[in-house]
């Protein structure tokens, strides 16, 4: 009997493991990747973003502003994971957890002036070098006015 229970538990464990799909970020390929929204080729990898869709597809973006425009148009239901490059470390970080800094004079591919960091400390350190900015969270980006600011 114990043997059967063990087998059933093992099978359940395997099934649960299968259902928890992970969505890993993929590398940018500058030769072919273009922003899903604005069509610019991705040449400034330090600002790139990507969305891993639940169906296995990836959508690539050149700037956090374009990524947010995609989410606004398509919703979050089909998103498996969303990543943005950490401006300080050149590593992929979770869009929903990242700390953002806005300064109209920060250059980004779309000149939206918003860059991402994994921690508040990293953002503070960036501001001490590149100039003070406004700290933002993912929810602040929802109603952020994307565009060049005078």
């Amino acid at each position: 009997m114990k043997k059967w229970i063990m087998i059933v538990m093992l099978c359940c464990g395997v099934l649960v493991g299968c259902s928890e799909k992970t969505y890993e970020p993929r590398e940018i390929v500058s030769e072919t990747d273009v922003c899903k929204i604005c069509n610019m080729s991705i040449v400034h990898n330090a600002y790139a973003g990507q969305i891993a869709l639940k169906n296995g597809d990836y959508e690539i973006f050149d700037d956090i502003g374009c990524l947010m425009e995609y989410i606004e148009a398509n919703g979050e239901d089909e998103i498996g994971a969303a990543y943005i490059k950490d401006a300080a470390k050149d590593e992929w970080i979770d869009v929903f957890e990242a700390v953002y800094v806005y300064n109209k004079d920060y250059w980004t591919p779309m000149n939206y002036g918003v860059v991402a960091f994994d921690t508040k400390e990293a953002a503070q350190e960036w501001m001490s070098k590149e100039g003070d900015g406004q700290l933002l969270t993912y929810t602040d980006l929802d109603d952020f006015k994307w565009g060049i600011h005078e």
Partner: protein
Amino acid sequence: MGLVKKIGFALLFYLFVSQTVYADFDVQNAIDAAKPGEVVHIPAGRYHGNFIVTKPIMLQGEEGTELIAEGNEPALRIENTANITVENITLSGKNKAIVASNVDGLELRKLQIEDVHTGVHVQSSKNVRIHEVNVTGNEGHYSQKGNGIAVFKSEDIIIEDNTIEQVQDGIYVEDVKRIVVQRNKVTNSRYGTHFMYTSDAEALFNTYLHNVTGLMIMMTKDILLESNTVANHVDFNGYGMLLYDVQQAEIKFNTIKNNRTGVALQKSSNVQVETNDFQMNQTALEGTKVSEDTTASNNSFTGNILTARSDKQGFKLVGNYYDDYSGIDLEDNGFGDVPYVAVSSFGQWMVRQPVYQYFVESPSVILLTSLDRQINKTEKNMLVDNTPRLAMKDTEEKNKMNVVQMLVGLFLTLSSLWLWKRGITE
């Protein structure tokens, strides 16, 4: 050693060595010593350093004058000044060749820029004219390179008669008011000319060949694109011209040839595409999320696989010539009697999935397109031209008489007759 040998060695020395020795002339000292308005003449020679100009002078080189940047700093920096001219100099370096900041009145002419990441970088300046500058970038992929000529946050700019190759964007323009880009040639780069956040801009008589995209216009207002030649942009993401989030644009008298997509309009309003020649593009004209007043009129579409495609919003087609139009003109007014319908199922699919482009001439797609032509005859609104022009606009050659040619011909004929007659009588 014989005298001839000595002379030979001396000549070889001057031929190979004199060009590469460091020149004695101190460029920075000469700049510092010059009074405002003076001309600093830099003799031929190779000058290594990072030179800075902060007063209104003219830097004039001659054949063989070369400034070579040391380290990551630019070869020449021009800052916080007015009325500067730099001419006839070759520049090279690891990063940027020339950086100009806060300059009112800058003229760069007859410059050769080679082996650099970025050619010319201008920011926060006005009244700038950059002409007859040749920029050749390094070998390699464009993602690893800088721009040929880049202008940021500036006003009243003229960029003309430049030749740029192998860079990221040939001419990059960001946040600029009033700019004319004309008679430039950009090849083998990412974008020929890239406008962002610019207003009151003109791109005229430029030639863009073999880039990813010829003209990339983004978030720009009030732009005229006229008489440009945009050809051979055939990459997976290649466009002759791509307008994204553009308001008020006129695209006139351009030759748009052999591109993956000739002209693409995205999220734009009030765009007029008039009297252009679309030849042999995979898709000639594409529009997504464009305003109702966007119109393509009096263009000629010849040899394109797909003439036009769009999302549901579509755009207007008026009085264009289509080589695949099969109607007739019984009224003899120069326009076909039945509308031309450009809607194609496959074209619409390609808008959604660009990878479908690889099936564009497959037998099943050809069959589908033929069926479309029969079925879509009832289409009334989307991508329909109710006045398709039947003949391309050719200039009528009139019987012109060249008086000089006629007189010369008459004289030669009469002379020949006279000589012939004289030959007979003798």
